[in-house]
């Protein structure tokens, strides 16, 4: 079997023991790699009802099928575990170089379980595995940790680590590698709960593709396609925030001030068309990315002088910007940097600050409790300060450090009404009141409100994608089937390790030749989508087993009751009838019960045990 290493490394942190499990072509054909492997390991490795922050939870990490090979944008790594934020099987994907490095070290995936007795880190040097003392790293930030570890083990090692937020078990905690983050669903807290500060890998082994000549030929063909595409110029100039102005002005679905509005009236100040020429000093890329959207954003003077981040991404411009009414791009950059250093997910952390700011607006909380003036007009100062307090769990930040759902329970006083989330996870930057299928995708996403499980924002905002044209974002009709299909699509993407920003170039039909050139395995488009369906069903089945059912998927009250107040989507909301129609359609398309449980027949059809 080419392309794969054929090995998974299982590590028991409690016993400080590890062993290798080999797998054959059948396993690769069934789960593909990346997310598929990571989900399989969690699905079969975590017992029912296990505490997400207990030793029985499994943290899986897997490189995609394309990881380590020259496929443009194909270097993504998947983490997965039972999420402390949602209680569901959640994966988080990042572009850091640790996935390819793992494969060079001889493993397609890691399965980490148990709990180390004291702060520790994993040191995987090709075939050898050690659990090492991390007492000196505890409390250090996500840039200090790799700096120290690279001095110790060599500049060529790759480091994935958590910040203080992960140590303190914040449900918003991320995992960091190369200034890229697996941010969502609190997987950093799973590492923290295992006393695992970092994973350090050096891999020097060969990765051998099945057909090197063909692989280079494909890579060059796509390189030319990328470079000829208009999005290549836009992405490399402005990054993912390129369409921020358009989402506001032409679509009116940029959630603002904790989702009270759908258009940010000060958007021009955080639009990359404004800041790219002023603050961006260099382009940055994930491993193997030949159409880079990463930007080195540097603040050279003023109150926030010294800030240097890989960003600011579209989602973060929303969460630490618009969602908090923060139009000071330097403040957004500083808050982004603090999130990265402390190890907080920028989306969830920002939405949580925005939630607190709305409570402040409504007088539910006051400066007496918060210690910080959380008025919208003070956002530039308040947002970075609150982020710092949340990451360190100091003062009022401790109360917010587990996200809006938990914070609302702690605060009470009707604050639940303003907690915007599904399944306990804060939503990304699309006001689904004006894009109803995407609203369904927030509900059906197995890890809580997410734009990338189905990626349905693109079809609805543009009006066409893949097999469909004339998609009406204000209609709920037909969305159940489409979302189920795009979810399968995305599961395939996260399994091969491709960046989702390539999905317009490589539709699934284009992937079989790449898989064949790397792994020598032949697939049809339908077979790949079947793998995607299998992966999604495993997550659905796990979640149902944990008692997370349709009644727990529903959209927040604001989305169902308060129409978007202004802009081109003015007056739009998702009614309860529309929500139910979409969910019913979705369950039918999935072959699940109306409660959201995959049926035994469906699981059998997909070969899920």
């Amino acid at each position: 079997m080419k392309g794969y290493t054929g090995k998974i490394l299982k590590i028991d942190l409690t016993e400080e023991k590890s062993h290798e499990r080999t797998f054959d072509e059948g396993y690769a054909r069934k789960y593909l790699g990346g997310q598929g492997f990571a989900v399989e390991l969690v699905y079969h490795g975590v017992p029912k009802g296990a505490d997400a922050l207990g030793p029985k939870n499994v943290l899986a990490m897997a490189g995609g099928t394309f990881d380590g090979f020259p496929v443009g944008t194909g270097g993504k790594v998947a983490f997965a575990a039972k999420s402390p934020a949602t209680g569901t099987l959640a994966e988080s994907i990042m572009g850091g170089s640790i996935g390819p490095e793992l494969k060079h070290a001889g493993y397609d995936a890691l399965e980490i379980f148990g709990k180390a007795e004291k702060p520790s880190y994993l040191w995987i040097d090709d075939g050898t595995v050690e659990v090492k003392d991390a007492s000196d790293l505890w409390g250090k930030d996500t840039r200090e940790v790799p700096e120290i570890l690279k001095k110790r083990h060599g500049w060529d090692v790759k480091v994935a680590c958590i910040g203080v937020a992960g140590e303190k078990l914040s449900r918003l905690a991320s995992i960091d590698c190369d200034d890229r983050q697996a941010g969502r669903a609190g997987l950093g807290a799973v590492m923290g709960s295992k006393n695992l500060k970092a994973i350090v890998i050096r891999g020097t082994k060969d990765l051998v593709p099945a057909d090197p000549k063909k692989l280079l030929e494909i890579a060059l063909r796509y390189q030319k396609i990328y470079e000829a595409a208009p999005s290549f110029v836009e992405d490399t100039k402005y990054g993912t925030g390129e369409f921020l102005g358009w989402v506001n002005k032409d679509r009116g679905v940029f959630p603002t001030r904790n989702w009270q509005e759908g258009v940010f009236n000060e958007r021009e100040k955080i639009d990359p068309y404004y800041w790219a020429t002023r603050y961006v000093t260099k382009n940055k890329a994930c491993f193997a990315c030949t159409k880079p959207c990463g930007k080195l954003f540097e603040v050279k003077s003023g109150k926030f002088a010294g800030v240097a981040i890989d960003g600011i991404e579209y989602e973060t411009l929303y969460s630490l910007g618009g969602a908090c009414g923060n139009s000071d791009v330097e403040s957004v950059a500083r808050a982004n940097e603090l999130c990265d250093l402390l190890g907080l997910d920028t989306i969830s952390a920002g939405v949580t600050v925005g939630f607190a700011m709305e409570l402040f607006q409504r007088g539910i909380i006051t400066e007496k409790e918060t210690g910080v003036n959380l008025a919208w007009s003070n956002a530039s100062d308040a947002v970075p300060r609150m982020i710092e307090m949340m990451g360190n769990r100091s003062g009022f930040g401790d109360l917010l450090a587990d996200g809006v759902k938990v914070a609302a329970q702690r605060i009470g006083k009707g604050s639940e009404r303003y907690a915007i989330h599904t399944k306990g996870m804060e939503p990304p930057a699309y006001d689904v009141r004006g894009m109803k299928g995407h609203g369904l995708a927030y509900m059906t996403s197995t890890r809580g409100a997410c734009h990338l499980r189905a990626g349905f924002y693109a079809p609805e905002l543009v009006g066409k994608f893949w097999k469909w044209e004339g998609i009406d974002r204000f209609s709920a009709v037909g969305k159940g089937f489409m979302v189920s299909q795009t979810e399968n699509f995305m599961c395939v993407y996260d399994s091969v390790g491709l960046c989702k920003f390539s999905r317009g170039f490589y539709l699934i039909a284009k992937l079989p030749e790449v898989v064949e050139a790397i792994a020598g395995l032949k697939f049809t488009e339908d077979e790949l989508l079947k793998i995607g369906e299998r992966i999604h069903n495993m997550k659905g089945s796990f979640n149902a087993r944990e008692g997370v059912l349709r009644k727990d998927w529903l959209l927040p009250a604001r989305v169902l009751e308060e129409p978007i107040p202004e802009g081109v989507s003015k007056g739009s909301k998702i009614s309860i009838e529309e929500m139910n129609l979409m969910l019913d359609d979705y369950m039918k398309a999935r072959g699940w019960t109306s409660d959201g449980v995959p049926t035994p027949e469906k699981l059998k059809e997909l070969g899920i045990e």
Partner: protein
Amino acid sequence: MVKMLVPYPENCTGCRFCEMACTVYHDGKVNHADARLQVHRRNVKVDFPSVCTHCVSCGEDCCVLHCPVEAIKKEDGIVRVNQDECTACGTCVEVCPFGVMRMEEKAFNCDLCGGDPTCVKFCPMKAIVYEEPKPEQYEKVKKLLKEV
């Protein structure tokens, strides 16, 4: 006009695609340590490629001068290791100021892919360009390498 690989550190994004393409082209496999050029991804601010300059910019650290058995020669402007004469002593690897002389059983280095360098084709950011040698660019890389 003689053309060489010229590195532009300010354009490099640190994606390391060139290293992968290099080893797949030459060896039919990926191994970053065997790539005939190296990408350094040091921190959020610094990424750069280090390439073989075929001793147009080496000064006295040249592998050609230091090889104790004279197995390394410059022919038609390209530095080549005579595999029959190489004793794998490692001297050239040590002295190469760009850290791009590689060693497995014998020493080997960049061959410019016969005049159509693979790394250049895959760099969309023009961080490696095949053009007339630019000493000032080589100096930039040397300076960055010294900062490790």
